[in-house]
């Protein structure tokens, strides 16, 4: 279940972390990614009744807003400023003892092509089905499923040196 509540807070609590993670594919800084999610979520909530699948529509809104953000003026300078930060902003939360493994997973995810990475984010952390992912990305469901399989295969190769418990 990707979300069916009529309370916007439920939607944001359920999908917020995955939406920010998705936005960070195109928006480097976490604060900017949250700005994108804010704008996308407001647009989504105001027009969600028109969507055949609201959850798929929410993720599509985030991607569109992130791409709009990229097209905005002065974005390049902001991206360079964020990239110049010495400390990286973590993609995932969790116990410190698994920090290395989380970093390796994040690196493997970040090394994926964009088209595969967005499918993994929507499937694993967004909880969307392949038809929902297909609707969000306007691709056939089989394409969404094959991108997911290819992504996992690449990540396995990337993580080959890391033991998987």
């Amino acid at each position, binding site marked *: 279940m990707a979300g069916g509540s009529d309370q*916007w*807070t439920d939607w944001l609590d359920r999908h917020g*972390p995955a939406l*920010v993670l998705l936005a960070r594919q195109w928006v480097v800084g976490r604060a900017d990614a949250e700005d994108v999610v804010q704008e996308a*979520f407001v647009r989504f909530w105001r027009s969600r009744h028109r969507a055949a699948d609201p959850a798929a529509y929410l993720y599509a809104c985030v991607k569109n807003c992130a791409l709009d953000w990229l097209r905005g003026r002065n974005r390049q300078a902001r991206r360079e400023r964020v990239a110049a930060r010495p400390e990286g902003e973590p993609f995932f939360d969790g116990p410190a003892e698994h920090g290395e493994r989380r970093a390796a997973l994040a690196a493997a995810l970040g090394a994926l092509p964009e088209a595969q990475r967005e499918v993994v984010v929507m499937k694993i952390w967004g909880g969307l089905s392949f038809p929902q992912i297909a609707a969000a990305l306007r691709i056939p469901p089989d394409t969404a499923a094959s991108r997911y399989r290819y992504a996992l295969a690449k990540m*396995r190769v990337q993580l080959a040196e890391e033991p998987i418990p």
Partner: protein
Amino acid sequence: MSDAPDPLEAELASIRPADAAPELKRRVAERLAESPPAQPRRVWPMAVVGGLIAACLAIGVIRWGSGRGVEPAPVVVPPPPQPAPAEVEDAAPMLLAYQRALARSPEELDALLDKEAAGSAEVNPDLVRVGPLTRSDATLHALLGKD
């Protein structure tokens, strides 16, 4: 896809993306509070219906106008010629003159009639006087080609 659990998939699902900042929820709440609730959903269908009605009316008017265009043009009947005002003015005094002349005496009426007859008997120069045939029957038959 296989139903067997994929270790990598399970490991990815076990980690959680970093939580969004609490500030995000507050800002979303502010934005949603200032927004009109779903007003475009009502305006949009009304605009479409209004457009369709206007289009139907326009088509009806165009068809009605083109149908009228096929009809034959109305025949323009020229108004009947009005009699010349001078003739009316002339006729009334003439009749009045006859009545007055008769009232005075029959002789005076006769004199007036004679005067009018003399005036109207003037020869019209446009008329052609036709004289009697002067050629013989034989000559006429020759001209007409009869035996």
